[in-house]
């Protein structure tokens, strides 16, 4: 919302600097975004809290002047020479402004034209270049006529982009006065919070400023009273549903003539961001910007014609689904049943609160103006605005709830302005349909309540004084203040909600910055652990401790991106997705169902930036549920490895690519850190993985994950380098189930261990885990550790075989072991290996 400083000053005295004003506005909730100076000097000081832009008008060089005659240029048709006085000297000034051509060659003007005049050396914006390019006026000859000064357009003075003609000031402008003193201004742009639409107008903002500065507020008063024949009998109003349309007011002006508005009106409208149209339309917009009530003007004669020459009846109602109306932007609109319509007996006239219809719109030939002020259900208005994708000043305000009291005030003010600017007579009285008057809330609030919620101590009188500044009517009664909401507030609730709303008003005026900081004194809640969060943190910390980098990816993806992980020949599992209705782009239109594709993409993206990549991500995947509208959010851990086993180094002799066992090692370390003791790795087939290099991970029959080397057919679709890519995918919820509630430590033996090696030949496909199981169970308590240190395949041991060699550690907790004791155990292990798995054990 663009607030015009001079306009605000009509309602409240502002003495301080712009910077102080803007700070006060921000601190009361009208956050100032930027300030545009219209001729005023840039504030001084090093630390300006706001952004300023705009042009400063030199007091000496830019002044009010008058043109007494407009003469033709001897050598150019499109230029004229103006006889001009700036109060000190008379001179001839050259201009090409089309709006002066009408006066050309008419001799001395009966009524001189007041203009904004810039003398030689003035710096202002170049009117002939797009944008805001500064230029300084210099003496030069244009078509043989000397020129050093200028009659200015709004664009040149930085008021607006208007450059069609020069500014013609109102007649009362004093010649010779510095222009900045006559009409220097500032436009303060503020953001209006959704519950503060009451401040989307000059009066509303001025009210907040007056309250913040503790100054009185001046209310606008209609200047002219009705002097024409009464309005009653000329039009009837029929409100079908007071819930949709609580109030509807009509006023009338007869014999009005649309013409250009006074210059100061046009300037204010432009500064506030609206285009002047003509004096009648401008009056409606002016009043909207002034008090916040959007108004609508009908051509009464059109309505009367539609009613067959009789007095029209205006009916407000909900649209029928599929009903049509052509709005004044010439769009034919198909309506929904939530849209509210202003109609007459012949059909729809306007989209209530949003935009008028084309047919009944006022034109230059309109003589009798029927002026509507109304209030509309904000929810319905907002739905219409969004369904019709129709942004308008009226729609913006009505969709945020406007008080019905403003309908009448708006009409009264506007009638007066129309009569003032367009001429004509105001019809006596109004037609005012207000079937269900709005009841402004009445709230009781006590200082203790404020102390309890806000933490500040105020007296009853202080509470009343603060609220009175914002025009709440306050009565002190015993221990509380009874507060009556003023007839422009729609954001204050009833009862306890109203109390909370008032607390904000009181605190705002008291000053948020004066609230004393305190430490929470309330009792501490019962402490609860967050098992999921603790577990994730533990897992992440373990993975970080072994050198892996965490990644976080978009949860949004596309089915095509996820399908990259399927090998071509494999049947693509038909996946169900949580699909977005309004995706931002096609590649982010569903929620991911697996962490693997983003991990592969991360590895692919980075493989050229590092010789060794080790990534992990922990996060949810989103799995649609049959019997629930909401998907299951399943947390997974994905680990991805690619590249070389070791980072390159200057004395490195050899290096190999990362492989399955590197990844498995990370998993083992993780499981060890989590004290998951009985995890089982078992070969499994999965479309993503190399069929011989893939393992499931289970614990107590719960399969919690899978790991392996990415299938060459899948890897081929990514720009990986030659080394294999390894992926593990773990369901965090299932893994969490495998965690022991507690784990115990074991004592350390004081007696020396006996170390033995054991080598054997077994069939090649014998899983090493099986061998280990046999060794462990035969070894009993004395066998404390088994480490596989060699696996060998070769002709020497016969094809189809492999040799496994283990370090065995024997240790007792109560004595030093004798060779004999160890030998007994060792023999038992060998026998078990021979009997149970037919291993050929190499004897000592």
């Amino acid at each position: 919302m663009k607030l015009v400083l001079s306009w605000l000053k009509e309602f409240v005295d502002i003495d301080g600097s712009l910077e102080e004003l803007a700070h006060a506005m921000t601190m009361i909730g009208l956050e100032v975004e930027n300030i545009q100076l219209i001729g005023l000097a840039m504030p001084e000081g090093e630390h300006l809290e706001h952004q300023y832009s705009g042009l400063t008008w030199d007091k000496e060089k830019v002044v009010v002047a008058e043109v007494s005659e407009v003469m033709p240029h001897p050598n150019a048709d499109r230029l004229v020479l103006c006889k001009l006085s700036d109060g000190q000297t008379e001179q001839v000034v050259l201009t090409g402004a089309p709006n002066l051509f009408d006066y050309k060659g008419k001799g001395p003007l009966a009524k001189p034209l007041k203009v904004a005049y810039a003398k030689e050396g003035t710096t202002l914006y170049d009117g002939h270049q797009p944008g805001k390019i500064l230029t300084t006026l210099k003496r030069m000859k244009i078509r043989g006529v000397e020129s050093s000064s200028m009659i200015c357009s709004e664009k040149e003075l930085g008021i607006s982009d208007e450059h069609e003609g020069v500014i013609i000031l109102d007649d009362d402008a004093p010649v010779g006065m510095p222009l900045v003193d006559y009409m220097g201004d500032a436009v303060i742009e503020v953001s209006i919070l959704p519950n503060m639409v009451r401040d989307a107008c000059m009066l509303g903002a001025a009210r907040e400023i007056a309250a913040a500065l503790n100054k009185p507020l001046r209310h606008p008063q209609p200047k002219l009273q009705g002097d024409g024949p009464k309005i009653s009998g000329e039009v009837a109003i029929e409100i079908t549903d007071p819930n949709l349309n609580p109030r509807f007011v009509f006023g009338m002006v007869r014999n009005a003539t649309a013409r250009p508005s006074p210059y100061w009106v046009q300037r204010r409208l432009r500064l506030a961001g609206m285009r002047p149209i003509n004096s009648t339309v401008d009056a409606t917009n002016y009043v909207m910007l002034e008090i916040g009530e959007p108004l609508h003007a009908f051509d009464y004669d059109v309505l009367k014609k539609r009613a067959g020459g009789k007095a029209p009846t205006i009916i407000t109602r909900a649209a029928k689904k599929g009903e049509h109306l052509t709005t004044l932007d010439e769009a034919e609109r198909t309506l929904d049943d939530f849209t509210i319509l202003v109609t007459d007996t012949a059909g729809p006239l306007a989209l209530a609160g949003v935009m008028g219809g084309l047919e009944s719109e006022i034109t230059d030939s309109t003589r009798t103006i029927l002026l509507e002020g109304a209030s509309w259900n904000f929810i319905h208005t907002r739905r219409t605005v969004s369904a019709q994708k129709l942004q308008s000043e009226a729609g913006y305000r009505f969709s945020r709830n406007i008080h019905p009291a403003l309908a009448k005030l708006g009409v009264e003010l506007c009638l007066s302005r129309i009569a003032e600017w367009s001429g004509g007579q105001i019809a006596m009285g109004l037609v005012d349909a207000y079937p269900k008057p709005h009841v402004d809330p009445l709230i009781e609030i006590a200082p203790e309540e404020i102390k309890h919620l806000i933490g500040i101590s105020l007296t009853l009188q202080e509470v009343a004084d603060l609220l009175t500044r914002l025009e709440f009517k306050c009565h002190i009664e015993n221990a509380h203040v009874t507060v009556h909401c003023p007839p422009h507030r729609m954001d204050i609730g009833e009862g306890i909600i109203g109390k909370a709303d008032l607390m904000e008003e009181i605190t705002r005026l008291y000053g948020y910055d004066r609230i004393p900081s305190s430490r929470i004194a309330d009792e501490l809640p019962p402490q609860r652990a967050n098992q999921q969060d603790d577990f994730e943190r533990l897992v992440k910390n373990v993975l970080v401790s072994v050198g892996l980098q965490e990644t976080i990816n978009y949860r949004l993806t596309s089915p095509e991106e996820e399908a990259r992980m399927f090998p071509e020949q494999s049947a693509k599992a038909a996946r169900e997705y949580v699909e977005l209705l309004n995706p931002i782009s096609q590649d982010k239109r569903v929620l991911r169902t697996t962490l693997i594709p983003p991990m592969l993409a991360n590895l692919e993206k980075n493989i050229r930036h590092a010789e060794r990549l080790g990534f992990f991500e922990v996060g949810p995947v989103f799995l649609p549920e049959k019997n629930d509208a909401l998907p299951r959010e399943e947390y997974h851990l994905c680990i991805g490895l690619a590249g070389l086993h070791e980072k390159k180094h200057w004395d490195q002799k050899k290096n190999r690519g990362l492989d399955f066992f590197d990844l498995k090692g990370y998993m083992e370390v993780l499981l060890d850190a989590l004290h998951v003791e009985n995890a089982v790795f078992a070969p499994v087939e999965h479309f993503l993985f190399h069929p011989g290099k893939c393992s499931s991970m289970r614990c107590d029959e719960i399969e919690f994950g899978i790991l392996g080397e990415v299938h060459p057919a899948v890897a081929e679709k990514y720009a990986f380098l030659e080394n294999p890519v390894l992926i593990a995918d773990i369901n965090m919820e299932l893994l969490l189930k495998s965690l022991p509630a507690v784990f115990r430590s074991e004592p350390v033996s004081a007696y020396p261990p006996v170390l033995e090696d054991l080598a054997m030949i077994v069939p090649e496909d014998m899983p090493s885990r099986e061998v280990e199981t046999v060794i462990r169970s035969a070894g009993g308590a004395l066998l404390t550790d088994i480490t596989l240190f060699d696996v060998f395949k070769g002709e020497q041991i016969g094809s189809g075989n492999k040799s496994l060699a283990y370090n065995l550690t024997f240790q007792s907790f109560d004595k030093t072991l004798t060779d004999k004791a160890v030998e007994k155990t060792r023999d038992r292990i060998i026998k078990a290996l021979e009997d149970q798995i037919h291993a050929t054990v190499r004897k000592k």
Partner: protein
Amino acid sequence: MEEKKDLIAVLQQIQQKAQDALHSVNSADDLERWKFTYLGRSSEVMQVFKEIPSMETALRPVLGQKANQVKTELEKRLELTHERIQQAALANNIKQQKLDVTLPGRQPERGRLHIATQTLQEIYRILAEMGFQVYRSREVESDEYNFELLNIPAYHPARDLWDTFYTKKEGVILRTHTSPGQIHAMHEYAPDPVRIVLPGMVYRYEQMDASHEIQFNQIELLAVGRNITFGDLRGTLEEFIRRMFGSGVETRLRPSYFPFTEPSAEMDMKCISCNGKGCGVCSGTGWLEILGCGMVHPTVLKNGGYDPEKFSGFAAGLGTERISMLRHGVDDIRNFWANDIRFLKQF
């Protein structure tokens, strides 16, 4: 007699010769050879010992004594030389082993949490010390929890505050804030007091640019109890900001609007980049909007299962990637989910 004198002279010559030879011994091998030559079985000293029995009895003791002296002396010198050689060898070895200490070391791989996680964990730690515990809730939410129960009815203008991703299932959306967790937590904990931090990924339908993402982490604080005040909110947030950005950081509180809080406020922090002078980071204002907050709206308390006549609460929320950006001078939020190792490894 002559014989005796001769042998003594011989012994002296032997000693002299051996000692002379020892001067040029500089290696263990040379020393071994010297030992063989001058102290070995067939060495001249040993020859003298062998000759002694054939000498006159009277001469024997003198000769024996002298021969022993020579042998002992040579052995002593052998020992000294041995030591000298060893010292020299060690010195030489050490010299040989000299490294170019300016060569790069072999660096073990250091793992890292994503910067977003690091910031979140730091926030958790600070808030945990202030009694706030982590409460997580789902990312795909119902309209009811994301909006309705938070006092944001359908079609209400307050909905304009959030650009929402809708799913194809009616009433199912991607949460626009972690606030639905407030309702979940209150339902779970009522009537106990609540003091929690709600973290997690939230989603906004936005055009992505250097400062806007469709997905970002947010944390919210929620405290509900019988005596929670706006002053408590301010004190808690100031403490939090000081812990995050340093004790000298200046903050201010100004009115704002959120449908689920009343009164509502926004907390600004003096720009840490320019110290309040005005720069690109703070758009020249000297202040950075850092978080939105307020007292929990009575309707929200009621929807959470708390009687607003008896309970009050505060809530505050902030985007944590923005915090990371401010603290580490990251100028483009799109870096966060791009997972470029060159970005990630800087943290």
